């Protein structure tokens, strides 16, 4: 399959599911951070659990070679600082980069503005990158995965993540009822 055609097809399915879940709507996403609507958490973690279990079993059955799948590399301090900044931006904007595209595509002007802001932020940071370069490359750990970090079997971590997600889902339902 042509990789660009596959990219468009995968993107269509991605955008479709985000829109179906209501994740093109900023007030709905923002509800996550005031404990009134935990859709963001529920969608994200059921997706993580599904894909994690799927990847684990497909690789066990020899259908998927996990060593051929690109694992995001770990840079401890940049990802900690970047994550904190990203989260602050997320609650101000009410949308993340992917969902801003869905918001804009469904007629929301605020979604288009988040896309423009995101683009400007990336452009400005890229242009002023020289002094950040050292920090950006610091605390590199390569494609480190949790089983290697914690010295536990891959399957144990998979099991633990599923268990934590199930408990967190129960907790999320209770929080929403209280709100």
């Amino acid at each position, binding site marked *: 399959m042509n990789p660009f055609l596959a990219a468009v097809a995968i993107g269509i399915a991605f955008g479709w599911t985000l829109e179906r879940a209501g994740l093109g709507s900023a007030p709905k996403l923002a*509800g996550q951070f005031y404990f009134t609507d935990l859709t963001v958490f529920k969608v994200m973690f059921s997706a993580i659990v599904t894909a994690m279990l799927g990847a684990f079993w497909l690789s066990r059955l020899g259908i998927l070679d996990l060593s051929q799948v690109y694992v995001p590399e770990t840079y401890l301090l940049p990802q900690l600082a970047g994550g904190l900044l990203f989260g602050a931006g997320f609650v101000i904007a009410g949308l993340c980069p992917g969902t801003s595209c869905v918001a804009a595509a469904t007629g929301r002007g605020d979604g288009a503005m988040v896309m423009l802001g995101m683009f400007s932020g990336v452009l400005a940071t890229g242009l002023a990158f020289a002094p950040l370069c050292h920090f950006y490359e610091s605390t590199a750990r390569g494609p480190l995965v949790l089983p290697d970090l914690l010295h536990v079997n891959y399957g144990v*971590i998979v099991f633990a993540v599923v268990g934590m997600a199930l408990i967190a889902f129960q907790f999320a339902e209770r929080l929403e009822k209280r709100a």
Partner: protein
Amino acid sequence: MSEGFWKRFRGLEVSRSRGKSATARPQAYADPYVAGTCLGLVLLASFVIAGRGLGASGAFASSAAGLVAAASPARAAANPYFAPYLGAGGPWSEWLLFEIAGVVLGGFLSALAAGRLRAAIERGPRLGRGSRLACAFGGGAVMGIGAVLARGCTSGLALTGGALLSAGSWLFMIAAFAGAYLFAPMVRKAWR
């Protein structure tokens, strides 16, 4: 499968009553667990078909690199952040750009099918339209800085790397939720 399970799936079906009347109400959103499971299957399909997961911020980075290269090829080539995007087929043939074009199309088609396409500026009850657009731009820009530093966003780093158990992805995810919850009380007026 129980009937209740399939009822939950209805939210994912294409509405057949669309367009019958101008006052037709938009369909309700799908159950978050069902939608999340579907999203997980899309991500898994991406692992199998493309050997990589989903993403979003990379498309912004690649197009920013493309813009800089168009304005000044020398400057882009000398920039340590943009230069890697200029290799191979160039910044405009980045996989994630095609994927994001798909996201826009998929989001549009889904909203069209569900009767949810509507021009709007969505905002909290106490925020004006101008302030909302300023927050959208400002928040987007702050996310852009964070995504550059972290090398990804909610899609490519948190979702994709989370499913692959990347340590940095889980760190980013925890940090992003922490950052959002810490900042939420300060921007409460924007949403509540």
